[in-house]
């Protein structure tokens, strides 16, 4: 299940290197794998069909490039096509006037109320004065839920004991009277086939004319995402999509389905339960995720935020040259510490999130690893092959650890080097040895 697409294609194309053109046969073979990968990722089967047809057309007759494997070439074509459909660049949220008005809608439990809090926090940080409106009068304690969130971030919540369209209309008055600059309307979860409640949304839209209407969709949604999105779009003509729960390991094919069926951009991405867990949508990352190629782009970007860019470039070069040493590893640990919890970092690496389940990352263990490396001479760090028995004993002594621990670290380090090598070959799986830090 976790075989990445590139890995599968690698297999299919082993024999193909340097064969000239991408032919119908070899394209067809790989297309079968792509189809499977997309279906496994929950892309709607009809969307898959159309997508595949487009890719085939693009792929036929392309010269195979000498510098890359045909599999990589096909993955690139597919990846680019996916990025294209997902929407070349990220689409901003736009407010036409003051107060700005944003309406959230979607199926039950998709994450609307939590998202309301996240959006409020986001704009509050940018200097806006947001108001959240509790227009879910059905779910038990829905109003309370929003109030609790409001309190956490010090954002007012508006609610009166009336029908949702009326609540929303009065909220605008309230915002004006209190000099608030942005209104976020939280509505009840509803089925797209519930005519009465869909009509209610329609009425709300009429009453408040929102600048933005976001369909909040759970990234774990399966084939039905197309029906849901089509119906909400028909009723509301929403302006964009927010994709939630992307902190999990779903492949998120629903994103492609929704985008394909409605043409509406994905504007926000929700990646956790905390109110700060909100991100913009990056088509590149999503494409990689759907194809099962991991979120390398996110990882690199995250690294860039906190890591010295020069350092990162140097490291990348080393990775490519297979010249990764203990010293690099030590530097990387220091950088990692700056980036945040190890778990969140590792999760972005392809294949690792599934592995993480079997791993407990003990951050205190990191200290012992550091101590061991620091007890090595520069030569030892750069050329681990010189680490014979007596050197190992000295290192154990110096770091206050045991020979067994030193041996284990060296062994794991060698494994990691091997994996980095595989990564270069496009095999992104199992890059980090699971038991490094326990």
């Amino acid at each position: 299940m976790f075989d990445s697409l590139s890995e599968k294609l690698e297999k299919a194309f082993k024999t193909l290197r340097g064969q000239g053109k991408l032919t119908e046969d070899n394209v067809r073979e790989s297309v079968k794998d792509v189809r499977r990968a997309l279906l496994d990722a929950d892309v709607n089967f009809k969307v898959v069909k159309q997508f595949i047809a487009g890719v085939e057309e693009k792929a036929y007759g392309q010269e195979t490039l000498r510098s890359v494997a045909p599999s990589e070439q096909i993955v690139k074509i597919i990846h680019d096509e996916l990025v294209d459909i997902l929407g070349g660049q990220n689409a901003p949220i736009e407010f036409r006037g003051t107060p700005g008005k944003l309406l959230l809608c979607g199926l039950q439990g998709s994450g609307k109320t939590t998202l309301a809090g996240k959006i409020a926090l986001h704009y509050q940080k940018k200097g806006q004065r947001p108001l959240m409106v509790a227009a879910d009068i059905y779910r038990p304690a829905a109003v309370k839920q929003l109030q609790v969130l409001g309190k956490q971030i010090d954002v007012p919540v508006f609610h009166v004991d009336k029908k949702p369209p009326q609540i929303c209309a009065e909220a605008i008055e309230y915002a004006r009277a209190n000099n608030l600059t942005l209104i976020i309307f939280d509505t009840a979860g509803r089925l797209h086939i519930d005519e009465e409640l869909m009509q209610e949304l329609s009425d709300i839209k009429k009453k408040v004319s929102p600048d933005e209407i976001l369909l909040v969709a759970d990234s774990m949604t399966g084939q039905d995402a197309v029906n849901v999105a089509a119906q909400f779009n028909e009723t509301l003509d929403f302006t964009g999509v927010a994709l939630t729960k992307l902190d999990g390991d779903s492949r998120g094919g629903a994103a492609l389905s929704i985008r394909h069926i409605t043409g509406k951009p994905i504007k926000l991405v929700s990646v956790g339960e905390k109110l700060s867990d909100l991100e913009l949508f990056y088509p590149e990352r999503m494409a990689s995720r759907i194809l099962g190629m991991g979120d390398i782009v996110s990882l690199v970007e995250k690294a860039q935020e906190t890591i010295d860019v020069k350092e990162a470039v140097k490291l990348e070069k080393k990775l490519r040259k297979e010249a990764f040493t203990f010293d690099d590893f030590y530097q990387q640990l220091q950088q990692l510490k700056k980036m945040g919890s190890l778990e969140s970092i590792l999760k972005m690496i392809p294949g690792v999130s599934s592995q993480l389940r079997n791993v407990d990352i003990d951050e205190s263990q990191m200290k012992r690893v550091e101590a061991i490396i620091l007890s090595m001479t520069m030569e030892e760090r750069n050329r681990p092959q010189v680490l014979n028995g007596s050197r190992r004993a000295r290192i154990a002594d110096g770091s206050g650890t045991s020979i067994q621990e030193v041996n284990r670290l060296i062994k794991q380090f060698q494994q990691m080097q091997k994996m980095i090598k595989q990564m270069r070959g496009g095999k992104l799986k199992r890059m980090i040895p699971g038991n490094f830090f326990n």
Partner: protein
Amino acid sequence: MGFSFKKLAQGLLKTKENIVSKLKTAVGLHKKIDAALLDEIEEILISADISVETTGKVVDDLKVRVAKQGIDNSDEVYGLLKDSLTELFSFQSGDRSFFEVVPKPYVIMIVGVNGTGKTTSIAKIARRFMSDGKKVTMAAADTFRAAAIDQLSIWANRVGCNIVKGQEGGDSASVAFDAVAAALARGDDLVIIDTAGRLHTKLNLMEELSKVKRVIKKAMPDAPHRTLLVIDGTTGQNALQQVEIFNKLLQLDGIIITKLDGTAKGGAVFSIVDKFKLPVVLIGIGEQMDDLDEFNPRDFVDAMFA
């Protein structure tokens, strides 16, 4: 087949292109059972969120049935397909009714990823046991999500059962422990434990759930008697990952699948039983407290094709 089957069927029917009409069109186009027809059947199954892998198995099984019964008329393929699908659940056919509970208190722990319908399902389960004349205690062990305790309290109030709760941000295991202890002392028939939604990929949160389970045992050694995973019926292939990890960490006894009143087919359950042989016990078919039914494979398959 009660009222809820009708409701289930209604929901599934509302899809503009429901499975049956698709299948009928497919069958209409192919007089003979040929590769093209089988391809279309495969597509239909995949469109119901049945995994590619399980779909392959079902289609293979269908081929065997077709050959064995010497059928070459495509009209009959439909009945055989239903048989193939129903067959996946044969391992759970001898199970007793969910609502026959033996030790007292009978402790049910409800787990699942965020927003699947755990809290609402607990209300529905409690409601059903209450109307059977049982005494029920709910444990508000989701101390994490905003207003989760209030939500369950409102349901307890509506249903008219007991509830044990702690502080928001408090220790969920001790709430669960207190609930079981209280139920033992009061002589209640059931304890149903609500837990916070959490993604299976978050190890530390999952560990917290294991702890809840361990701590309950201190109050009652053989509890919880059932640990049930709630799966959102609209979920696609990720349902399999959810089952795998929750099962590994908490040794599940069964699955509840919710939100089948929508247009999603809930086909993930076929892949789940195919892969994990975990019984599907209950289905959720609405937001109200009566919108619950026992899972019946034949009804489920029929409703899918109704």
